[in-house]
């Protein structure tokens, strides 16, 4: 006897990310770097805002023409809105931070 089954997964048609983005090759003279902060500041412990400032300082020493975009999500528990992500369109890379 054959029993027919129904797939309970409702698989989406869109692709799922499965591989890391390729590493950038040679760094151009003028680069955009973004920092997307999950939480504006924490009560104690690691603080991604300060961490990103340190990274920015290092980058500026190495690459004089660096444009930095830095934002904090308005609500830490929600994905960033598209309007916020649009600000990073020109960035070569974006670092997101939780720092917990």
């Amino acid at each position, binding site marked *: *006897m*054959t*029993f*027919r*089954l*129904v*797939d*309970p*997964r*409702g*698989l*989406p*048609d*869109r*692709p*799922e990310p*499965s591989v890391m983005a390729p590493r950038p090759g040679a760094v151009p003279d003028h680069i955009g770097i973004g920092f997307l902060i999950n939480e*504006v*500041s*924490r*009560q*104690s*412990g690691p*603080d991604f805002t300060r961490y990103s400032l340190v990274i920015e300082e290092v980058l500026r020493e190495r690459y004089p023409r660096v444009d930095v975009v830095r934002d904090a999500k308005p*609500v*830490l*528990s*929600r*994905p960033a809105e598209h309007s916020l992500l649009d600000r990073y369109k020109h960035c070569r890379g974006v670092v997101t931070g939780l720092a917990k």
Partner: protein
Amino acid sequence: MREARRMAPPFPAEVDDLRTWVELSYELRLTDGLPVHPPLREVVDALVAGSGRDADDLVAVIPPRDGRATVEVVAANAAMAGALPEHMPVVLAALEAMAEPRFNLRGITLTTHAAWPLVIVSGDEVGRLGMATGETVFSGGGNRANVAIGRAVKLVLWNVGAQFVGEPVKEVFGHQGRLSGSCIAESPDSPWEPFHRARGLDDPSGVTVFGCESPHSVAMWGADDEPHNRLAQAADAMATRGSNNMHTMGEILVVLTPSEARHLDRRGLGRAEVQQELFRLARRRLGDIRPRGPLRPDASPEHWYTWWPDWVDQSDDDTMVPVVERPEDIHVVVAGADSIPWIAVCPGWGNLGGFAVTRPIRLRAPRDAGGAP
């Protein structure tokens, strides 16, 4: 074949021997560990028919995989949970409520916090489905409807959303609902109008979803009959130092046993008065909870919480900070055994999401099980 389908293991359209289903369900990761029934085509069709809706109707898109929970896909999970066709309208209403943006389903189910979407059924449907409202109500009350509805919702989140542990679920401790699902029903012995009506729906039945922790027991040790003293007992459990609510506010659930609710009602307190009194009592002194640490070295305004409304004076350590912003953010439900007056407090996720969303349970004429309209 698209990427998502290629990455997921193939699902067999049929099996020749049902004894193979148990191992197959584990191999295909179609369960979180508890055994599940096979989603047999005939059973799924009957569940779809019970919903009164088209099989292809989209109920919700479930994160993080953004899987499509159509009526048929929900029915397949409901079949695995052992649900009956008459349970389907409740399951669908609960999922539609969770899909509301203010519920933040992605956040509440993927957070590190030990919170989970609680399904609260109220009104006529509680009696029609014979749902348990008494002893062990938070663990299903030994009742098929309670358990199957909660479990069906849970399996949809697992199978359609791919909310697998560790990838990406990072919840630190876990929550009973994450395994079994979590569904309670409001007691018909409540002295007050059904919960969904208190939240503004006129429908005979409603379902409310709320992201919250497991119940914290509040026994009436040392409390006399005065409502103030009894509610102060609950307020103390609501305003704990480490709770998300105490630091970010949001919403919180308080469940009264029927006898406790009747007692308060006899003393002149309706649901709204209970909310008001709890709002007045559930507070902590700012100086005792003020954030400290190297990033907040003092009490200057740049270190004040942005979660709180302006009327909370953060310049004064003696300010008594309420656990939520408004009385109506304290949800009061009547459930549990009628043997002893008791209260349960279910802290929310704070101001991060999981806010209560209420939807009507709409019963439609069952369709032919073959799927024809």
